[in-house]
């Protein structure tokens, strides 16, 4: 027989109280695990929905010219003419160290063309990428499928009296209007969008780019890190982070994290109080027993070990239960909070081990005072019959 057998047998004897103890601690761990899991879900959700926020990094050529604004973003010295960025810059962006965080790269060339006597800005884009970035676009018609088709901003269509299916001439080349953009309230209303290669040919600026919009998200590193790495790859370009959209989301997440931390601390504190009062009551109930232990030669440290071992066992059991139920709770309410349709149940060994360790630690620490009290009990007082 070892001390652990005494602890285990005592726990078995006090089933009801032990169950209450486990429950008190498990609720605390459940809360912590659920909040951590939900915070993670929200983080991943932001990452997944990144495209909906549009671009958050803008790459412009370095220039001393006066700046120009595009979509509330400072475009630096984007002169509408002149040699700027190049198609060959695009693969370099993918070469950065944290490239797995880059979601979309959308290159653009802007020029001005004269159509029916009006000077109108023409933007060459890759529609596949552009549509991923601009989820809010509503097109009457379809997006251009090839170089022979263009998309008109709402205001341009009104000024030119054009509707979808009509044709127009750009620098002598006839193109079909495949669709008209719904009013966006942005500069997109004043632009004609065409296929990038077509626009590069039309403006006679092959393989040239005016700007590149990048959508990136980094769970573990700040957006500034991505900006820094792209800057290093493209020394001739000016790379700027547009933080507003993400920052708001991240701030909300940060608030939630702080809230979660606060709630977790309170619940864990209550859990540790439950352990403390329960262990204290247990020690008082066992005065006589502890007296016997001491009388037959148990050291104070043996008594402390028996009580710590009981608290540790309770803590580990509560940790396992707390982790599993926390996982269940986060699976149930996580989708409601994040708005995602379904969340896959993943077992994170670090969180599992961490929560069990935390539970065992709280159980043991909360029992320190009761254990010390027990060890210091005077055996003669404990054994009143003596």
């Amino acid at each position, binding site marked *: *027989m*070892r*001390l652990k*057998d*005494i602890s285990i*047998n*005592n726990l*078995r*004897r006090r089933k009801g109280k032990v169950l209450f103890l486990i429950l008190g601690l498990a609720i605390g761990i459940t809360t912590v695990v659920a909040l951590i899991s939900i915070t993670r879900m929200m983080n991943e959700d932001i990452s997944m929905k990144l495209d909906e926020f549009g671009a958050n990094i803008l790459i412009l050529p370095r220039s001393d010219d006066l700046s120009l604004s595009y979509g509330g973003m400072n475009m630096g010295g984007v002169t509408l003419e002149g040699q700027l960025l190049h198609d060959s810059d695009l693969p370099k962006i993918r070469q950065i160290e944290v490239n797995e965080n880059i979601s979309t790269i959308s290159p653009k060339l802007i020029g001005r063309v004269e159509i029916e006597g009006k000077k109108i800005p023409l933007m060459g884009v890759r529609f596949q990428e552009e549509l991923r970035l601009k989820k809010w676009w509503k097109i009457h018609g379809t997006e251009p499928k090839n170089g022979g088709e263009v998309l008109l901003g709402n205001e341009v269509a009104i000024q030119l009296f054009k509707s979808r299916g009509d044709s127009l001439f750009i620098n002598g080349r006839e193109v079909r209007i495949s669709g008209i953009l719904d009013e966006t309230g942005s500069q997109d209303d004043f632009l004609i969008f065409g296929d990038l290669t077509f626009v590069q040919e039309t403006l006679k600026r092959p393989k040239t780019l005016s700007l590149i919009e990048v959508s990136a998200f980094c769970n573990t590193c700040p957006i500034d890190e991505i900006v820094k790495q792209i800057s290093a790859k493209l020394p001739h370009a000016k790379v700027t982070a547009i933080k507003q959209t993400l920052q708001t989301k991240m701030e909300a997440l940060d608030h939630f994290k702080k809230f979660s931390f606060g709630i977790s601390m309170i619940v864990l504190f209550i859990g540790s109080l439950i352990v403390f009062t329960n262990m204290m009551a247990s020690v008082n109930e066992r005065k*006589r*027993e502890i007296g*016997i*232990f*001491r*009388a*037959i*030669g*148990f*050291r*104070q*440290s*043996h008594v402390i070990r028996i009580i710590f071992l009981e608290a540790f066992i309770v803590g580990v059991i509560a940790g396992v239960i707390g982790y599993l139920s926390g996982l269940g709770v986060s699976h149930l309410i996580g989708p409601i909070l994040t708005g995602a349709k379904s969340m896959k149940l993943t077992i994170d060994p670090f969180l599992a081990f961490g929560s069990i360790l935390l539970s065992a630690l709280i159980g043991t620490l909360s029992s320190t005072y009761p254990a010390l009290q027990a060890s210091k009990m005077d*055996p*003669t007082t404990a*054994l009143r*019959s*003596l």
Partner: protein
Amino acid sequence: MSLIEIKKLSKAYESGEENIRALIEVDLNIERGEFVSVMGPSGSGKSTLLTILGGLNHPTEGEVIVDNIPIYKLPTEKLADFRREYIGFIFQSFQLIPYLTVIENVMLPLSITEKSNKEQRRMAEEILERIGLRGKEKRLPDQLSGGEQERVAIARALVNSPPILMADEPTGNLDSKTGKEIMDLFRSLNQEGQTIVMVTHNFENTTFSTRILSLKDGRVENS
């Protein structure tokens, strides 16, 4: 050299504003193999004497030397080791651990030693055999009669062969027949060389004692 030497032992308790002197300048020697019965009326200090002899209760003054060890000069943990190695206690109302089986109760003093589980079990079974409790190892204390519980308590006190057996009213909770059986067991243990110090009210229990110590108002009247 006596096994137990007590020199000018005094014990006083604070009870409210009152200072109770439980033992007053007691001098006593107990030799190896003696069976000493401590008698006296309630409050005479006999239980206090027993707890002080057993290393459970620090005296106010005086010295207790067991096997040349001044036990109250030992640090707390060493004093616990002394109790484990030298003293086997038999408490008045058996004081078995209710959630441990008979054999586990007997193995309790061995659970904090280096002895293997197998060795512990062997030692416990041997002592249970000797006191006639074989076959009841797996029972819980509340499934035993008073006499059987007393025997388990004796087995627990003897399992690690301590030089001194201390018993506090060992027959106090037993009927006279069972009480006599226990006293017979004490006699045979003493005949095998076991030193026994027993506190009792019952004069009949002192039949097999080698010496009777009479306490009154904290002083030894005769010995």
